[in-house]
């Protein structure tokens, strides 16, 4: 079921036939359903019902203290025809997710390849490189906000010291620099996840393959391209899809570093929905915003399901 084992399908067999009659009776007793009841309550009450009610809400107009009113497609129409921010939200969400995931994949791959070599204290370094991922997101967001600070931040200090700029830019106040800053922060936080997962994937590749390739005179680059990448593909794709879903739905980094600004240029669907719900008090509209990207999410889930979910025997 894990990322690393999903690439090696086990032969299917009927595990129930080998069991004693007593076990079979027990397996078919009603106790199984009873044990699953708490889970079902959570799934229905706190996941299915809220998603259902969000869908209903997205066709309504609702603000605090007022009863909801059915407005049909009005919220969705407004999103696509009148909302001047939504273009930025869509563009930014896609850029943020795509570029961050790309960078995390690259950096994670480098981390995994380096840690897969015979270096001293390998586990120590693996742990050390996981540090960015260990820090609470709030801490990451705050620290990077401070690092990108115009006057006291270390980024401008270093760029200035290298003689790269005359006037220190206000990173988080400029549309594209703010986007870049967020992508850097997200990449920093997320690459260790890729690194550790891909390392586990690399370690399952038999070394004989590399030895054979070496005898055949394959270069390092050829070995990476012809052996490592193809055999790593199942893990790589799973991690990429999973991370795309998470990055797409990120909230904390953006909310803390820019709160969607300057002029809505760094909003994600989540932060924009939060803004509409709790700053503009338009719950119905906010629900519609939070659901607009659902078709895209469903595509990702459909791609992920056969990789991560295996049918029960």
């Amino acid at each position, binding site marked *: 079921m894990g990322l690393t084992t999903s690439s090696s399908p086990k032969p299917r067999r009927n595990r129930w036939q080998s069991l004693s009659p007593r076990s079979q009776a027990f397996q*078919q007793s*009603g106790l199984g359903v009873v044990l699953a009841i708490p889970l079902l309550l959570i799934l229905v009450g706190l996941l299915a019902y809220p998603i259902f009610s969000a869908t209903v809400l997205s066709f309504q107009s609702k603000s605090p203290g007022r009863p909801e009113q059915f407005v049909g497609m009005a919220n969705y129409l407004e999103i696509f025809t009148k909302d001047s921010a939504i273009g930025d939200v869509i563009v930014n969400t896609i850029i943020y997710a795509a570029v961050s995931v790309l960078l995390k994949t690259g950096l994670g791959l480098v981390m995994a390849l380096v840690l897969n070599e015979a270096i001293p204290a390998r586990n120590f370094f693996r742990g050390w*490189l996981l540090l960015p991922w260990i820090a*609470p*997101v709030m801490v990451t967001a705050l620290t990077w906000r401070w690092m990108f600070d115009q006057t006291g931040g270390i980024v401008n200090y270093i760029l200035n010291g290298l003689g790269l700029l005359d006037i220190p830019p206000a990173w988080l106040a400029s549309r594209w620099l703010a986007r870049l800053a967020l992508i850097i922060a997200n990449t920093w936080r997320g690459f260790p996840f890729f690194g550790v997962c891909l390392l586990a994937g690399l370690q399952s590749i038999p070394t004989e393959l590399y030895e054979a390739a070496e005898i055949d005179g394959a270069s390092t680059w050829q070995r990476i391209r012809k052996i490592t990448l193809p055999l790593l593909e199942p893990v790589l794709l799973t991690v990429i899809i999973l991370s795309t879903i*998470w990055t797409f739905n990120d909230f904390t980094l953006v909310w*803390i570093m820019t709160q969607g600004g300057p002029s809505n240029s760094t909003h994600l669907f989540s932060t924009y929905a939060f803004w509409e719900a709790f700053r503009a008090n338009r719950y119905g509209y906010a629900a519609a915003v939070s659901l607009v990207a659902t078709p895209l999410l469903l595509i990702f889930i459909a791609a992920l399901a056969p990789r991560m979910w295996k049918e029960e025997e």
Partner: protein
Amino acid sequence: MISGSRRPTVGQRMVLYGILAALVLLATFPFYWMLLTSLKTGRAVFDTTQVLLARNLTLQNYMDLFRTTGILRWVWITAALAAASTVIALIISILAAYSITDFRYRGRKFVSFAVFLSYVIPQAMLFIPLFLLLNRVHLVNTFLGLVLAYQTFCVPFCTWLLLGYFRTLPKELKDAALIDGCTPLGVLWRIILPLAAPGIATAAIFSFTQCWNEFLYVAALAQSGHLKTLSLGISGFLVSDIFIWGQMMAAAIIATIPMLLLFIFLQRFVVQGLTMGSVKG
């Protein structure tokens, strides 16, 4: 290994260690910067003559933090919330994972698929309806309300992770216990729980970590501010006109230390959980 069985040349080694050093620097530097800022006060924070090193390091920011904010209370609330949510989620998901792996009933496959589905459903889609739901039953701004909301991510990934773990346990052992007259709950208690202890530890650590780091739900469901977690308390610094970066970085250090300790002592479980695809990155 890509370098093959040959001993790598000196040049290859230098490239390898160079990349490793760059990665270590990248991973470490923001923490150094955080720590250094937290030990500077007043003008030193913005002094360009002491950016990477500092004279007169002081714990003043930490003292001010303890004196002027409720940070110890935030730590306590965050820890209590994370612990309560984790214990409840573990109980629910242990029972559920046992049910799905060892019993047969109609809809079992569907339940396991629903667990996968709820595991990938983002919180960003849930916070508005959860807010309205909890508001209706007067649980907004309450401890219980947050614990319930946290179940939406704790339960799916604990169940998900335990499912993977429970499946690997030898069924012959359970079968033998049943033949010897063990009850079904006895099998869970005497056979499965001891064998699955590492998996349960992994689930517990991740659940606790996720709750400790959580921000979206507290921001949406505990807006009144008297139930402040560390995330919410720290985000409050950003409301004022002047950012006291020294104090903010001190608070960041305080929020990081428990996670760091957890990680140092339980790294094995963390890495295992990560590669099982159980956590956000």
